[in-house]
């Protein structure tokens, strides 16, 4: 039994130790907004917020997350930064199939909050760990830059 906080709710999971966090979230808790694209840490589709920072849910094991605070895309429903990012993603056509989008948003939110002065080159560098096969990234980069600019005022 592993107890952790998921999207603000203390949750007890009964999964074998080999179950990675993404599978626990998806299969056990039904939080299917966290996607799997590689299960070896490269693509970023599974990115969640773990103890306040982005992390790969595919190579974190649920049992090793006892006591952790996890936020998935579903947990940002009322987050103001995420709301800005969502609006910008739509305005800049930053998604096509939408599969990379939840992980992309969690990384984007981290960029916006951690590196408020980021320029285009920095945004592109910080996005290296989130692959998108559809958009060519331009819309994503523009959306994040727009939110950064708006927040700088």
């Amino acid at each position, binding site marked *: 039994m592993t107890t952790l906080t998921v999207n603000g709710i203390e949750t007890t999971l009964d999964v*074998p*130790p*080999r179950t*990675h966090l993404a*599978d626990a979230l998806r299969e056990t808790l039904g939080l299917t907004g966290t996607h799997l694209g590689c*299960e*070896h*840490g490269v693509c*970023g589709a599974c*990115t969640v917020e*773990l103890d306040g*920072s*982005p*992390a*790969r849910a*595919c*190579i*974190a*094991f649920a*049992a*090793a997350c*006892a006591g952790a605070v996890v936020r998935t895309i579903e947990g940002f429903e009322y987050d103001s930064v995420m709301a800005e990012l969502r609006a910008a993603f739509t305005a800049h056509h930053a998604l096509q199939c939408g599969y990379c989008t939840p992980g992309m948003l969690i*990384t984007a939110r*981290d960029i916006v909050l951690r590196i408020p002065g980021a320029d285009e080159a920095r945004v592109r*560098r*910080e996005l*290296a*760990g*989130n692959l998108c096969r559809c958009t060519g990234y331009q819309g994503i980069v523009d959306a994040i830059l727009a939110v950064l600019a708006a927040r700088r005022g």
Partner: protein
Amino acid sequence: MKAAAFDLVRPRTVADALAALADGARPLAGGQSLGPMLNFRLATPERLADIRTLAALRAHAETDDTITWGAAVTHAEVEDGRVPDPTGGTLRAIAGHIAYRAVRNRGTVGGSLAHADPAADWISALTALGGSVRIAGPEGEREEALTGWMSGAFATQLAEGELLLSVTIPRPRPGARLAYRKLCRKEGEFAMAIAAVLDDPARAIRRVVVGATDGAPIIAEGADAGPRAHAAIDAWPGEAWKARLLHVSLDRALGDIAA
């Protein structure tokens, strides 16, 4: 692919951890290397001991001559300057180009040194700085210099049942420089070639480490360390184009020192 079954224990102290290791457990730190290996079933341990949050491994310390990072200090903590950087920023910058932020938030310095991927960054950078690691095992604790750490790809002086506790880095003296060149095409990729050069005139140290050699790094010390490392690359058995990249990374790092 999903990992093969394993047990997971979460020791609270180093002693508990050592007991778990003695019982056959394998350390799990950030899981950023072990996780993929488990998912690929390239690693099929029966038991893992989660050491990521052990207080002793999370600590860091400074003396006049050294700084010490606990093994479970993360790449992101180094990147952000949340632990001291004796090079005045070079290690922070190196950390910032390891993998991606989401990986750096979990991946640990100790895990990287223990995993000993020939193309990994800390292995080369901290070896050039003359770092050493502290190890605890059934027979007690010992210290190992990083210069002799790797015996081959993914092979180190760490014996089964041993735990890497910390890495200690001698402070370079004023006027010293660490040059670090990682050649890779994509941000966050493992290196195709690495050269790390420490030039510390006050201590009369010049140490060259050439990494991403598919095995233990090439290490050369002394005033002629540069030319000797180049010669070692010439003798290196890998493909010619890769040797060329090693030479280029070394030239560039030496150039940074000279600049």
